[in-house]
């Protein structure tokens, strides 16, 4: 059975890649603005990225296509399947950064402060297509002191995935994009099923993740300024209201606590796949596995509306090392990667979304299932000032750990949500953001 599934996955991935390459070939060569320059460039450059094996193959395809335009350039692909941040940091401390590399949107600051990132602002002028019709706000995460030092290679929306078979079985209407948090809580309760003896939950109506995307989304949906004036502001009423959605779902038994999930040795997305969770909030990155493994009907809608809506900005940004000897080549590679021809080769996988508005409505870049509306709509409310400020402190990693540890205490019922949020603010503002 597993063998067959693997074969089927391998076959479908091969089909998707072939389709991507075919689409890439279909795009006219002169569409890419860097083609002429590419032919004049030469040299060897390294490109370091993370991801799964499928992404490795996709990017190998992108580099191969690029090298057809630039026959004198060799792009060495440095693929790091796990523990990426530590390995990048190790290379950086050894002064051996690759020419181009990925960084999380909240990890750029430390590289910028260390002077390790090339200012690519002049290249944005040289390759105007890089920023033309780009989704609002995404460039800001890589912009420090007016310098563009990292570029958003894509982004991912945060949406609610639905097991629509379960809705049909329970006689509950599938929500539409205009649903609210109250609707969500009510549906989650209706879809939660207990075991026959009533002692345990068999299927949860929904799940939550003790993860930055969830926090940012829920607090943002109540207009919370959870990071303000350089300080953590989780005790703010609106922050509490947003996080309260997660907390209430656990207390009501409609969602398992994160500890309950980890004590199954599984993750929340796996619970959705095996039919133990009816609604699951997550990013676009789960789609390839959902497509392969869900043996039920499923779809996605926008996250339920609180008093407003905020979609967390989750992205890998591409940086050029300041030590590169070939910045022109690096920028040319980036330009190709971000071109329609480059993007079509990676967007087919549905792991992420293109950073350009015109491509968002294009089925070749934002394919289905699930419905594309939820993803397209969320571009209109992407990111928040709090997220931007917090991620640009360069201390997100530690701040995130403080949030996660204290919220886990609340989600497991050891402290109240108010106590946890107070502890987050005291700890973060007393140490990380003291000055």
């Amino acid at each position: 059975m597993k063998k067959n599934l693997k074969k089927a996955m391998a076959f479908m991935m091969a089909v998707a890649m072939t389709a991507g390459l075919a689409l890439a070939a279909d795009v006219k060569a002169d569409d890419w603005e860097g083609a002429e320059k590419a032919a004049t460039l030469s040299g060897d450059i390294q490109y370091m990225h993370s991801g799964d094996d499928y992404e490795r193959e996709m990017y190998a395809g992108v580099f191969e296509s690029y090298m057809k335009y630039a026959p004198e350039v060799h792009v060495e692909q440095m693929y790091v399947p796990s523990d990426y941040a530590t390995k990048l940091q190790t290379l950086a401390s050894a002064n051996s950064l690759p020419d181009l590399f990925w960084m999380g949107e909240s990890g750029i600051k430390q590289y910028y402060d260390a002077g390790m990132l090339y200012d690519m602002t002049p290249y944005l002028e040289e390759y105007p297509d890089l920023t033309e019709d780009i989704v609002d706000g995404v460039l800001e995460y890589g912009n420090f002191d007016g310098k563009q030092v990292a570029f958003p290679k894509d982004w991912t929306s945060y949406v609610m995935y639905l097991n629509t078979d379960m809705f049909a079985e329970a006689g509950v209407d599938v929500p539409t994009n205009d649903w609210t948090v109250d609707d969500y809580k009510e549906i989650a309760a209706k879809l939660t099923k207990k075991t026959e003896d009533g002692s345990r939950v068999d299927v949860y109506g929904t799940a939550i993740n003790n993860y930055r995307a969830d926090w940012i989304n829920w607090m943002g949906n109540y207009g919370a300024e959870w990071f303000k004036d350089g300080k953590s502001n989780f005790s703010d009423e609106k922050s509490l209201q947003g996080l309260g959605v997660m907390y209430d779902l656990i207390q009501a038994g409609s969602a398992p606590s994160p500890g309950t999930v980890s004590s199954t040795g599984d993750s929340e997305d796996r619970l959705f796949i095996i039919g133990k969770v009816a609604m699951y909030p997550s990013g676009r990155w789960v789609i390839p596995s959902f497509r392969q493994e869900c043996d039920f009907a499923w779809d996605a809608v926008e996250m339920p509306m609180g008093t407003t809506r905020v979609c967390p900005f989750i992205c890998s940004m591409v940086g050029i090392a300041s030590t590169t000897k070939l910045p022109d080549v690096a920028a040319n590679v980036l330009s190709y990667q971000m071109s329609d021809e480059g993007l079509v080769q990676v967007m087919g996988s549905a792991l992420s979304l293109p950073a350009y508005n015109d491509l968002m409505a294009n089925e070749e870049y934002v394919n289905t299932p699930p419905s594309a509306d939820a993803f397209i709509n969320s571009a209109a409310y992407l990111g928040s000032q709090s997220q931007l400020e917090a991620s640009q402190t360069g201390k997100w990693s530690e701040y995130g750990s403080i949030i996660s540890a204290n919220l886990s205490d609340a989600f497991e019922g050891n402290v109240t949500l108010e106590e946890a949020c107070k502890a987050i603010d005291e700890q973060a503002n007393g140490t990380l953001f003291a000055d």
Partner: protein
Amino acid sequence: MNNTSTVKHGLTLRQKEAATGVAFIALPLLSLLVFMYYPIIRSFFISLYEWNLLQKPTFNGVNNYKTLFADKVFLTSLWNTCRWVITYVPMSVVTSFLLALLLDQKLKGAGFFRTLYYLPVVAPIVVVALLWVWIYNTDYGILNFILEKLFHIKPIGWLTDARFSLFAIAVMSVWKWAGYNMLIFLAALQGIDDSIYEAAELDGVTPWTKLFYIKIPLVMPSIYFVMLTAVIDAFQMFTEIFIMTKGGPGYSTYTVSYYLWSCAFEYSKMGYACAMAAVMFVIILVVTLIQNKVMDRRVQYDM
């Protein structure tokens, strides 16, 4: 000139033997210097700097140490580590010793049981940890199932309730490592000369007397060794926490090693992490010296 100890090239036999000895220990000694002593000394120096791995270290004096003792997470981690040592070490030593005592009997199939008890030691820690994660599962774990069926005890969140999480991991660790120390105890017990038991039996001693006046005193060097290594290992506990709870819920299973790792590789605070390592080094050293002083008096090396 002493002809018997002189060789053709002018080296005495003693010198030649010394040179051979040095050649043999050179590589391990070099490894020890490069991969052990140098990092230890270097980390002491780094602890005096603020260093995020990406920028040049800046001298920070003893500020990292001052911050450390005002850091609630560190203090919690230190307290948890002490709780861990106090919980895990006695449980581990007693369990191992009891197993060794059982296997020291003239039992049928002793070899089978010895293998059985030793199996968890050779099983990868990741596999063992995941296995226990399932045993401890609140809703579907076998432990809660048994407790509920036999004693009508409501499901306990072994890994999610801050009151139980550290203890639960300690039990798992005892299960995992008991076989290793058991072998050391067993070897010591089987090294006791039968004539001692025979003489005791002639005097009509009870099994308890035999245990407390013959066995325990004579295996004291092994107990001493096991206690020493168990305490040192316990202070450095990391893997089980990393796999099973990631320090949670809250900070209830944060240990110094886990926090140290987080600071070094997640928060890029290498100087701070090194300060933590230095404090741990001193604590372990002091505890070991105390143990040495207290236990050495009770250790009898002669049979």
